[in-house]
């Protein structure tokens, strides 16, 4: 079966109903393994102590904040180029999830930073870029919510999503430039290239678990959005029928 066969929303809903319980179970199992490794196997950092365990959720959040945006950019292409009927449903549903992950990345970054920096927030290059990304998510959501007609909202937000996707590297570069200009030495580097396998494996498993969670939540949101649009159409038919 090709992807285009799932363009039919009814068929898509059928697939979601079949896949969702299994996917949910796999997600839960991955989380169980990941959390067990994080809390009982992974070592505490010699400098940061147990605080370092925030990393196991912070890094997946940060990764998903980008991944959601890439999903949206892909869906935006689907809307504009291939006119796939589910693409804009996918894009619309990914935006709030992406915003939530981005917010969590910021919040956990801030919680992690407090003992390190002694303050809740520093204008560190990475955090700042994520903050800009967060604002872009909120802008996209605002645009989708403001335009009432789903088809027009989809086109407009697809254009904005792609413009954003092109701009993200430029923003990232500018923020890095701005940051080094003002702060020659960065206060604190998160992660780092050398990371021991005892920490890397739990981190990867957590990243997989959160990615699965994203897929589950995204599919559920898409299902709800399709149903919501059906209700909208039914109400419009009802209004027209009452003439």
């Amino acid at each position, binding site marked *: 079966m090709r992807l285009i066969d799932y363009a039919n929303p009814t068929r898509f809903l059928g697939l979601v109903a079949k896949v969702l319980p299994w996917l949910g179970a796999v997600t839960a199992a991955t989380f169980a393994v990941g959390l067990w490794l994080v809390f009982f196997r992974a070592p505490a950092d010699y400098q940061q102590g147990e605080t370092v365990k925030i990393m196991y959720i912070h890094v997946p959040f940060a990764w998903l904040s980008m991944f959601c945006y890439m999903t949206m950019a892909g869906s935006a292409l689907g809307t504009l180029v291939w006119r796939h009927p589910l693409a804009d449903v996918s894009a619309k549903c990914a935006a709030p999830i992406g915003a939530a992950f981005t917010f969590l990345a910021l919040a956990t970054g801030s919680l992690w930073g407090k003992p390190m920096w002694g303050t809740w927030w520093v204008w560190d290059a990475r955090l700042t870029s994520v903050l800009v990304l967060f604002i872009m998510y909120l802008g996209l959501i605002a645009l989708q919510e403001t335009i009432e007609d789903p088809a027009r909202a989809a086109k407009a937000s697809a254009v904005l999503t792609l413009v954003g996707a092109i701009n993200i590297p430029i923003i990232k570069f500018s923020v890095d430039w701005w940051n080094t200009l003002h702060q020659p030495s960065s206060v604190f580097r998160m992660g780092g290239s050398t990371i021991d396998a005892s920490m890397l494996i739990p981190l990867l498993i957590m990243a997989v678990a959160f990615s699965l969670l994203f897929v589950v939540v995204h599919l559920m949101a898409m299902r709800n959005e399709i149903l919501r649009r059906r209700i909208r159409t039914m109400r419009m038919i009802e*209004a027209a029928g*009452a*003439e």
Partner: protein
Amino acid sequence: MAPPVTRLVGEKLTLDRGGRRVLSDLSFAAQSGVALVVTGANGAGKSTLLRLIAGLLRPVSGRLALEGGDAELSIAQHCHYFGHQDALKNQLSVGENLAFWRDFFGLADAEVFAALDRVGLARLIDLPAAYLSAGQRRRLAFARLLVTRRPIWLLDEPTSALDAASEARLLEIVGEHLDAGGLVVAATHLALPFPRMDALRLGPATIGAAA
């Protein structure tokens, strides 16, 4: 209880809009129970006259007087104005739209559902107003006149955008209002079959009188 409104009289009304004299020395009298039908070409001042009675415009000279009615209230506060615009909010449901105007005008006279039933929109009470067609919006706007009792109805092209069935229903409601001793001033270019009516023709003659 205030005495019923019996007559609405306009004496030598003159009104300018945007530097142009729209009404000049216009006198009229509207009786309760009889529709005063205002006719005239486009720009003759039909809508202006209605807005003047509604208190939305002020005359340069002349005066409006009401016989009967509540002395505490202004003439405008005795009026319902049913103009071209529907004053509906798309984000609110049909019922919420109507309930707001009922509560805002105070002294609720009828249930929202009953009024919607009267104009044939009762089934759509929970639907957002955004989904309504032009004719349905117009009927919903008209239902506003039914939820709060005000003796004077100012109707500006009341049947525009309505199909034959809705038009008949609207005229029936207006007729009932007249039978109950209500006062109607209707601006129209169509010959609307009100049960009892007086005619007021605005036109070049009234404008010419300014000179």
